[in-house]
């Protein structure tokens, strides 16, 4: 797997490089420290996946998200995993707004768990989607607080499954995580999607997009008119 890394912080850049060097199937082919540099490196090296910071020069704003949007147009097949300090659902939603295929949103502290970082890179490079569990947890929690929350219709197990689906787990990965059979997971997933009236989609990345958008919408829209 050929990776282009974009990160302006020297310490983190060096750390990530060291970390990735421990995996024989991961090769960092280009390193950039700002948005134009990232786009150039992608042109030059034609990687399988981009690992990028959100906030970089020139504007120290949301360059990583902008890069992902730009690359969606120029290189639809390229995976982009965004590493961020911000646990804001808004950025994740922006990232998947024009399609969730091959897009990932991971909090920076996950670099501490090398395996998780590399697994996410692989998933995104394959066209899957990853959304950080903290973001998903936040959305699920907010959604559950609604008095007539549709999430109340889910069993605790199904809620857990929903979280994993939104995070980007495949059915197989969910089965491993929960130590149940693939068939059991399929049943859970289809029951969750049914109860929430979400489309039954076997494509993991589309499931992620549907779940995240759904969760962010129910979380922020309390039923009208209750408080006077």
């Amino acid at each position, binding site marked *: 797997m050929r990776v282009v890394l974009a990160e302006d912080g020297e310490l983190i850049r060096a750390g990530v490089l060291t970390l990735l060097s421990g995996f024989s199937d991961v090769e960092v082919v280009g390193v950039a420290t700002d948005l134009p540099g990232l786009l150039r490196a992608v042109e030059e090296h034609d990687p399988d996946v981009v690992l990028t910071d959100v906030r970089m020069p020139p504007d120290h704003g949301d360059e990583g998200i902008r890069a992902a949007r730009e690359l969606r147009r120029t290189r639809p097949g390229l995976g982009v995993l965004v590493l961020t*300090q*911000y646990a*804001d659902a808004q950025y994740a939603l922006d990232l998947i707004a024009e399609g969730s295929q091959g897009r990932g949103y991971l909090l920076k502290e996950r670099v501490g768990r090398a395996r998780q970082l590399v697994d996410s890179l692989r998933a995104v490079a394959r066209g899957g989607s990853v959304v950080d569990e903290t973001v998903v947890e936040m959305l699920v*929690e907010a959604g559950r*607080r609604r*008095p007539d929350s549709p999430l109340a219709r889910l069993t605790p197990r199904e809620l857990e499954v929903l979280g994993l689906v939104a995070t980007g787990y495949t059915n197989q990965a969910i089965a491993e995580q929960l130590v149940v059979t693939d068939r059991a997971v399929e049943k859970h997933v289809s029951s969750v999607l049914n109860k929430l009236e979400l489309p039954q989609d076997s494509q993991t990345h589309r499931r992620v997009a549907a779940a995240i958008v759904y969760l962010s919408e129910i*979380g922020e829209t309390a039923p009208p008119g209750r*408080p006077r």
Partner: protein
Amino acid sequence: MSLLDPVRRRAGVRPPLPAVASPEAEARARQYWWVNAFALTSATVALAVAYLAGARFVTIAQDLLVMSLALLVLLGSAPWVQRHGGRAAGASVLASTLLFSLGAVWVTPFLAPLAVLALLVPLMVTMPLLDRRLLVVTTAVVLAGVAVVSGLGEWRRAASPVPSSVGPVVSLVVFTPMVVGVIAWVVLDTYRRLEAQSAELRASREQVVRAADAARRTLERDLHDGAQQRLVGLSLRLGGMRTLVEAGDCDAVLRSLDEAVEENIAAVRELRELARGIYPAVLTERGLVPALRAAALQVPVPCGVDGGDVPRYPENVEAAVYFCVLEALQNATKHARATEVRIEVWDEAGPAFRVRDDGVGFHVDEATRSGGGLAGMEARIVAIGGRWGVASAPGEGTSIGGVVPSEPR
């Protein structure tokens, strides 16, 4: 109170916020009308007395006629002023002053400078009540009046040189105190108002400084008890690992490493929450509504955000509204024990917002007097030229709203 009206979302009608023009400016314009009525009446009576007492000059008779007409216009519009308030008061006084200026200058041309002064006053007093269009119209009327009165004075002085006579002098003696009296009232009133405003500003500046200090203390405490503790713990653990490596206990080292990573993740998480509390990046990057949506996710009770197409405003405006809403959310969940909160944001020539909860409510007067959160919110919004209001009563829930006039970025 209006803030408690149910939201008529479907019709797109927003409940009224505190009235657009300040009640002070409104009251001032009405007072000004009364001051004018009093001055004009006394001057007319004084001139009439002088005439009856034997100063039977033609110019005095003509001036009397002019003043009576002006008085008639002023008093005649009294019911209309009663009904329509400050702007009507301004229009009524302006019409009467125009009539008086033109007539009096026709009769006694050397009153022109006094008449010009008198014409400028209605504009000064009603200015805060006028929107842009009305301001342009009123200014145009006043300027035209000033030009005509000056020209008329010059022309009349040249056309019919007034022989030195007692009549015009009597008029002058009567008119001067009238005009000077009105102007003196306006100046004194403005002075008093500015005094009051500067006292308010001093108080709100102190409030801002106090709030900033309190925020620093909280920040220090949070850092000390949170991330700092974890990082110290991490150092200890790393030290311990050294011992484990020396002892050759590989399993224990691996366990310890995993724990160190988790510890570190927790420290990063705490720092992130702190950084967000200081100034959320999503506010800078995405604006008010996305930032409030993100904040709503953290509220421990259901919290909906209604925010349609709200444009981006200058940074200080967005920050003031954001932190004011945050403070209102804190009040709702910490003190009011609300079970549900609703945030509304819309554009009303600047960001307008409202936070409603179904909590225990409070007596607004008592809470405002005791300062604290409410005063802080008000200071924040007022400091950037906005208006802020709160409506609450025990058992009724609370509604906090405001609007900050501002051009989009």
